[in-house]
């Protein structure tokens, strides 16, 4: 093998961290979810809960129907971030090239490491022993094969997946097993009569490019187990292309006033993240999920780039007003795309009073830094409860 890539996937990470903190939960069906009192979705289900058919992303209510004895534990991001940082520290001992793909998975490039398979095995042992958290490791010639390999024997598995074994193991499986192919792409492929990885591999590159454009080229490579993407360290990761935040409401909400409050808090949060990175954006997208789970996204691109909370809110509120249509919502989201470093924007000839600068917001940031988030809140939002926002 020319390249040797390993993928480390922490098994049921959030649930495993909770079990570590509370050993009495070990072996019990455990659901880590946003707000157990509300109607959030399952963030992570322990393997004991998965035996009942519970999956991540499932509404907690549905999960409890399938597994009535499950223990509900609220998400504690601080705890998981600390555990993830500990895992990252350990991984860095085994390769100079570590890419944290998310809070609970990482790619390592072992190409320059002598005896890479032994090193990958030692890495897995070190993570499990030193953190007490189980993980599965896949090793392959590229990131795709490594990732698929880590899925082969979960939990606590170690697999080597070569390009030669890829067709036998994956050509009969549905296209959704390939990373990056979600329900929408799978539906488009199904419309072409393509359901399995093998059927996708049989499609010519030109045919896929014709149908899907640049994505077609990626699909063509994925179906053949090819992936040239490098393992990128933190310093090499590209800058964010968008900044967003979304919130699942505790109950279906139809009241425009309350929805505007949630939207305002979302805009404040997104604007704060942009401000701290000194970014401005071109397009604001509002995501609305109705009570029947139908989801729409609507975007607006004003003539000038924007970054202030009130600018975001003006755009988001107009999109909400234009698209809610009196229907109840269960989720609201706001994201800003086309972000770039601030500066160089054209000055307004007639600036609107009160919208000049962001000195106030930077002062509020300093208060948050000093005393914690939520120390100062908008008076208009005090009546609503938005845990996690």
């Amino acid at each position: 093998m020319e390249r040797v890539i390993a993928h480390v996937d922490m098994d049921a990470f959030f649930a495993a961290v909770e079990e570590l903190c509370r050993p009495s939960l070990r072996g019990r069906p455990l659901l880590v979810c946003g707000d157990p009192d509300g109607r959030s979705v399952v963030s992570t289900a322990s393997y004991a809960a998965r035996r009942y058919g519970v999956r991540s992303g499932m509404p907690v209510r549905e999960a409890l129907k399938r597994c009535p004895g499950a223990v509900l534990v609220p998400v504690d991001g601080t705890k998981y971030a600390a555990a993830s940082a500990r895992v990252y520290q350990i991984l860095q001992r085994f390769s100079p090239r570590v890419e944290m793909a998310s809070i609970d998975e990482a790619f390592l490039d072992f190409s320059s490491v002598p005896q890479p398979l032994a090193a990958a095995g030692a890495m897995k042992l070190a993570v499990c022993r030193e953190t007490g958290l189980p993980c599965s490791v896949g090793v392959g010639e590229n990131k795709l094969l490594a990732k698929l390999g880590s899925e082969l024997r979960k939990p606590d598995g170690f697999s080597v997946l070569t390009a030669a074994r890829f067709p036998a193991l994956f050509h009969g499986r549905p296209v959704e097993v390939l990373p990056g192919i979600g329900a929408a792409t799978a539906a488009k492929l199904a419309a072409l009569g393509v359901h399995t990885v093998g059927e996708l591999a049989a499609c010519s590159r030109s045919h896929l490019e014709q149908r899907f454009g640049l994505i077609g080229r990626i699909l063509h490579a994925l179906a053949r187990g090819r992936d040239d993407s490098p393992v990128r360290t933190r310093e090499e990761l590209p800058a964010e292309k968008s900044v967003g935040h979304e919130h699942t409401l505790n109950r279906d909400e139809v009241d425009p006033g309350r929805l505007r409050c949630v939207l305002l808090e979302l805009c404040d949060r997104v604007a704060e993240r942009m401000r701290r990175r000194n970014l401005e954006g071109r397009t604001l997208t509002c995501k609305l999920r109705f009570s029947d789970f139908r989801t729409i996204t609507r975007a607006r691109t004003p003539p000038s780039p924007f970054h202030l909370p009130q600018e975001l809110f003006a755009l988001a509120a107009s999109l909400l007003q234009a698209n809610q249509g009196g229907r109840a919502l269960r989720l609201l989201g706001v994201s800003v795309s086309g972000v770039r470093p601030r500066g160089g924007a054209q000055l307004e000839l007639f600036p609107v009073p009160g919208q000049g600068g962001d000195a106030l917001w930077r002062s509020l940031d300093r208060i948050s830094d000093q005393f914690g988030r939520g120390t100062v809140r908008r008076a208009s939002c005090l009546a609503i409860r938005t845990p996690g926002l």
Partner: protein
Amino acid sequence: MEGELVRVLCRSGRSGLRPISFTRREQEYRVAAINARWTGREGVHPLHFYALSLEGGGEGVLCFASRSACWYLTALYGDEV
């Protein structure tokens, strides 16, 4: 800092503070094991969390808030577990 203010007896060593017992509503809970520890933030001030198993079977989470130098019990799991 959310949690119940408690009185904690702890040992201070190279690896930082190590809770030995805490008193809540005049009842003493003795620490059997520290299962995990992690650090959070309250603004710029660190919060030191300790996930504990208690003698007698319960479990809990203590937090030392460096800003106030106070201990908080942020979770206590007892008979229901």
